[in-house]
């Protein structure tokens, strides 16, 4: 899906659908199977396995405590898959386009830029973590409880230094507030199909269709 507005709207709708009912979550899962890159995304983003594992653990606790752990796992799993799809489709600069389109060249520009910086920071942190892991391998260390604290401190201090550098660079270049930007979005006809299917799922989830049909009987 090329247009970020469609993507975010669809993801929001599907998240609500998955959250409110198990059949809705199953519908969202089917949507994910049909309209996304599916397993390629799962393989590419290694954090998925860990996240799903944590949800499975939480579901187990709920089940042991007498709750419906299975329903929790299905609903949260579907939400996570939609989140992964949204993240994997994200292109550079898209939040800036979206922000300016939504809220204009002042507040929209700043919010879009902050969102872009956040995405960049997340990518930098992932790269930093990989480098720390490599450095530990070189030194014959393993990522464990003992090495986790220094690694976390390095990640945080590095992120702070980078933020400071960016802020100083922007100040040196004369940035004050807002900016001038013409948002552009790519539309493709094929993108309408998943959006329409998501709307149908939302309609089925939130509109009491069965009662509506009974009225007509």
């Amino acid at each position: 899906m090329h247009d970020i507005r469609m993507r975010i709207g669809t993801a929001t709708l599907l998240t609500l659908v998955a959250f409110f009912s198990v059949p809705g979550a199953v519908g969202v899962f089917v949507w994910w199977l049909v309209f996304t890159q599916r397993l390629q995304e799962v393989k590419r983003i290694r954090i998925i396995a860990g996240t799903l594992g944590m949800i499975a653990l939480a579901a187990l606790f709920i089940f042991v405590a007498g709750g419906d752990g299975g329903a929790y796992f299905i609903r949260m799993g579907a939400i996570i898959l939609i989140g992964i799809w949204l993240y994997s489709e994200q292109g550079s600069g898209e939040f800036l386009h979206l922000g300016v389109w939504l809220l204009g060249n002042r507040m929209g520009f700043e919010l879009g830029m902050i969102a872009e910086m956040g995405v960049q920071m997340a990518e930098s942190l992932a790269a930093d973590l990989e480098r720390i892991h490599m450095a530990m391998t070189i030194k014959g260390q393993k990522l464990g409880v003992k090495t986790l604290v220094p690694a976390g401190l390095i990640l945080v201090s590095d992120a702070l230094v980078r933020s400071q550098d960016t802020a100083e660079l922007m100040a040196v270049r004369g940035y004050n507030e807002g900016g001038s930007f013409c948002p552009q979005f790519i539309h493709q006809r094929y993108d309408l199909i998943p959006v329409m299917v998501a709307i149908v799922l939302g309609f089925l989830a939130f509109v009491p269709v069965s009662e509506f049909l009974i009225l007509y009987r």
Partner: protein
Amino acid sequence: MRLQLNAARACRGDWSLKAEGTFGEGVHLVSGDVGSGKSTLALMMAGLLSLSNGTIARNGISSSMISLQFPEYHVTGSTVAEECMSWGLDPGPILSELNLMDKQDRAPLTLSRGELKRLHLACMLVKKYDLLLLDEPFSSLDAREKERICKLISQRTSGITVLFTHEQTTFPSVDYLWEIQQGKLIERGEMPGALHHWTHAPVLIKKLIASGKCLKNISPSDLIEAVCMT
């Protein structure tokens, strides 16, 4: 003791690097343009990068170490003292030698890159390794420090030492010369004969060769000797 690259190939998108050859004991210099693949080759030889084709065989090598180009990539300690300890070393002597005792409680990443590089190389060169891979060991260092590192490299009497660099001024005495060109590792051979085929040679070395001077090697003392030769 040798490191053998058998049609080893690493790919990144459309770009790839192919390497074939045997690295025996001694000091090897791998030169090439920026972005030619020197760091990639270093990672391949260290076993930190998966090969898409071929193999790398280690014969008689029981210990190895790689120095990455950017010293901050090696940091795993949250203070300068902890960073020394992460190499299994007592911070006292190392930090005294580097005049960093007053900075031992600071975060390593608040040091200048030059200081961090000195710290990293000092920690790394304390121990002896059969295979020592040095990716741009002279970057961020001043002339005096470059010469000190060259001396330390020259003091290694055994093992395989490989320098990956586009340095143009300061070198240790080297035994073998390699180049990376158009995504391929090319063996130029043993010194001093290899100098005549060295396409990335610094201007001074090219001029000395062109003027008929006899260069034994490329260390500062060798260059001075060649320049002074009548």
